[in-house]
């Protein structure tokens, strides 16, 4: 790893003023579970590192019926996994963490670090987008962005120089809605070769799908919103035939990478399969709530 200057502010205020004053290439470091790998591989060599892992005011998970769930940037994967309120109100997030990485990574890696890394294979961004979440950013001023608009390109996110992500805001679950996440893993805890997060709402009297938000992972340079698939589902009663159609559309629309874990063709087909699985599960959950 190349040498760098290091500072570890203890408050958001201190961090923001430091980030604003440093010249040259500055990187925020949190748990380092993604960033130190890149630095060790020589793909990243910042001049200054601002380590925010000690800013304890950002380590929280809160819930209110009006606002929904707010997760501070420093909450670790392990904290989300074990949180009673998450298990009760947003079990999909606990399920996601159950399949995310290994205990050592969950202990030290943070939600903020995960969503800011901009890895299109990562699970939390997809689930947060499916849940219509927002990210709160803090720099010279505060900004709130839709999780969906935050992702610009591979490892590129909408963070300006001097900005920190401070909070993920997940709105309350609407009535008659269900959400699910599924991913293709060789071994539990692997990064998904392909993954899908699906959110649907169903009219309890007609059984018609009123809203759908489906996000696929590792099939494009950013988390992929399957809008074509959503369109065929909304306004109809979802059945196997319709799910297959939605899956087919996604397999044509995605632009997946090819690597040792899967060819482009394989990933396209898995996009179809996992979109169907996640959507069917979300649908079932929405119906159970009726």
């Amino acid at each position, binding site marked *: *790893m*190349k*040498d*760098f*200057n*290091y500072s*570890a502010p203890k408050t958001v205020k201190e961090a923001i003023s430091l980030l604003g004053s*440093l*010249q040259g290439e500055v990187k925020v*470091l949190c748990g*380092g*579970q993604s960033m*130190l*790998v890149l*630095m*060790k*591989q020589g793909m990243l060599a910042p001049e*200054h*590192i601002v*380590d925010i*892992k000690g800013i304890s005011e950002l380590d929280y998970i809160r819930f209110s019926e009006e606002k929904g769930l707010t997760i501070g940037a420093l909450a670790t994967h*392990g904290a989300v996994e074990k949180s009673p309120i998450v298990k009760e109100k947003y079990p999909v997030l606990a399920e996601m963490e159950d399949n995310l*990485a*290994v*205990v*050592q*990574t969950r*202990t*030290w890696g943070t939600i903020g670090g995960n969503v800011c890394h901009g890895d299109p294979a990562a699970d939390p961004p997809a689930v947060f987008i499916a849940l219509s979440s927002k990210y709160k950013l803090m720099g010279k001023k505060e900004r709130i962005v839709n999780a969906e608009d935050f992702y610009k390109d591979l490892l590129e996110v909408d963070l300006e120089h001097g900005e920190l992500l401070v909070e993920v805001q997940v709105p309350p679950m609407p009535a008659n809605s269900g959400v699910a996440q599924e991913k293709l893993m060789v*071994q*539990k*805890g692997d990064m998904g070769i392909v993954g899908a997060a699906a959110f649907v709402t169903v009219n309890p009297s007609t059984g018609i799908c009123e809203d759908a938000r489906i996000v696929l992972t590792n099939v494009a340079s950013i988390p992929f919103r399957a809008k074509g698939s959503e369109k065929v589902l909304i306004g109809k009663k979802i059945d196997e035939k319709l799910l297959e159609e939605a899956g087919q559309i996604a397999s044509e629309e995605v632009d997946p990478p090819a690597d040792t874990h899967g060819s482009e063709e394989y990933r396209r087909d898995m996009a179809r399969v996992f979109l169907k699985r996640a959507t069917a599960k979300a649908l079932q959950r929405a119906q159970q709530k009726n």
Partner: protein
Amino acid sequence: MKKIKGYSITLTVNNENYDLTAEPNRTLLEVLRDDLHLTGTKESCGEGACGSCTVLVDDQPVRSCLTLAVAVEGRHITTIEGLSQGGALHPVQDAFVAHHAIQCGFCSPGMILTAYALLKENPSPTEEEIRRAISGNVCRCTGYAKIVEAIKSLADQGRQER
């Protein structure tokens, strides 16, 4: 801004304080092995994939190859050297020996610390919970069966004690 070469830090390892100077780009693994000569902690992949470098930070398993030494000042670090007391092995170590859960031994420090942390949090884990907990520790020798048996023997004791 002037380049600062070394940072003076105090690391608390196995309940002892060490005052040392560390360059910020050095990992906890490097400092433990090269500066403190605590060579029980092993490096294998160096990039977060194998778990052989696992140490405990505030009783939680962490990969020391993906942690900067300067970032854990003020935390309690436990390495494999810190488990035995007065020359007597810790029960988790004893169980690994008794169940032949060690072959080459390279994964063992990390594996044992991960098992120790699991049992501390959950004294009677199921086999599934054990397998999930050690899924971040790769072993190329044992095939895991003996390791799971060793941890299970302690889990069973945990159940009896309740």
